[in-house]
């Protein structure tokens, strides 16, 4: 009798302990609830609730994927970058500055090809004091890194698909999702890479 009640107590204690620390993964509950509660609006369809391979890995590993997972997916993302057919990566930095300033695009009432939202998260040119700090400062981007072809290619590639270089980066994949056109990405690359751009003064 005494033994039985001690056993019962142990079971009860174990149950209580499991209550205190949630063991199960609530992401399936969360996703099911969102799929029931959200609706498509404007350019944002319900398909945007689905995770692609990158989002799924970052959600699963809380933005810290094991090296093997990150390497494999980054390679896939890099291979999917569509480089300009004419081989030229630099457009017009003045047009690039306007694109960097524009924070619109891909929301309900927007389409792609509007703005790059760069200043929302980055310091870019020296004249704009209203810049965010979610991403690193890009001021003197090429002046610090060099103006060579490899850095140009890195800048264009990073704008096109930041996840090809750092899998769970917070930066959107502007080219990969069609948020910016090829010409717009060239203009932004020029903003970062052109020796005459205010960014490099």
């Amino acid at each position, binding site marked *: 009798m005494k033994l039985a009640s001690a056993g019962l107590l142990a079971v009860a204690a174990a149950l209580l302990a499991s209550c205190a620390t*949630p063991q199960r993964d*609530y992401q399936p509950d969360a996703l099911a609830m*969102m799929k029931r*509660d*959200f609706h498509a609006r404007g350019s944002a369809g319900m398909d945007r*609730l689905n995770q692609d391979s990158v989002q799924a890995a970052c959600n699963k590993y809380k933005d810290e994927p094991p090296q093997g997972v990150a390497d494999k997916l980054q390679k896939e993302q890099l291979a999917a970058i569509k480089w300009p057919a004419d081989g030229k990566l630099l457009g017009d930095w003045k047009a690039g500055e306007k694109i960097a300033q524009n924070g619109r695009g891909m*929301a309900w009432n927007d389409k792609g090809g509007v703005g790059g939202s760069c200043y929302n998260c980055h310091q870019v040119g020296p004249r704009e004091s209203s810049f965010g700090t*979610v991403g690193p400062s890009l001021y003197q981007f090429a002046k610090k890194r060099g103006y060579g072809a490899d850095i140009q290619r890195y800048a264009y590639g990073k704008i096109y698909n930041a996840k090809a270089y750092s899998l769970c980066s917070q930066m*959107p*994949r502007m080219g990969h999702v069609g948020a910016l056109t090829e010409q717009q990405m060239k203009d932004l690359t020029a903003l970062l890479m052109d020796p005459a751009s205010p960014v490099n003064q």
Partner: protein
Amino acid sequence: MKRALVLGTLAVACAAVAQTPDPTAAEFDKFREIMEQDNPAELFEVKGEELWKTPRGPKNASLEKCDLGLGPGVVKGAYAQTPRYFADVDRVMDAEARIVHCMITLQGFTQAELAKAPFSSLVRTPEPVSIVTYVAAQSRGMKFASPQNHVKERAAYETGKAIFHYRAGAFDFSCASCHGVDDKRIRTQPLPNFTKPEQAIRAVQGWPGYRMTGGVMHSLQWRLNDCYRQQRFPEPGYASETLSALLTYVTVNANGHVYRGPGIKR
């Protein structure tokens, strides 16, 4: 005398600037303090009280029998103790979702008509916005105490936490992209980290709020809706369980902090 006063004020202002790394934010905080002494939100509070007490809708009933969690008709302290579990619907609801529920069950309005245009514009403030402003004002000065006693309240917290961290959409954003780390800003707007108790209060403080941009009264339902627009997600349903779960996550994180009542927002 006058000079001493001016110098004193300057000293206080300088101290405020010194404490906050962002001078724009400090300036705005001072401005808000002055504005809150004569907050236009009070007009919506009065309107909301009238709407609460007046028999309306197809059933010609007032909301005075609405149970916001502390018993039918008890408004004092109710807002600070939501979101919470309601047995009659067997789910967790935030304050505005509960008010909408009462407007449907007691007054005979339909979910469809209340969800059709649920946010304020220059020409129209939806009734639930005024009502939730009135209800919120009756918790002014009280500590947030969103309960975690019922199993579904704990499940709402965990589900809300998972929703908060779920990355998807055109820009791979989650709520945590902006509100999951310390000391970041978008443009000049500082971003509080809602995963930490001392900063989570900033998710719920000042709401419902009179927003100077546009000059309209908004509730947390609007704020979360606008977050999802900027997150490049589809649109969340008005007064939906998803938003109640998210509000459970941030409010429970903010539990213990004093609610200052309906506020003013930039």
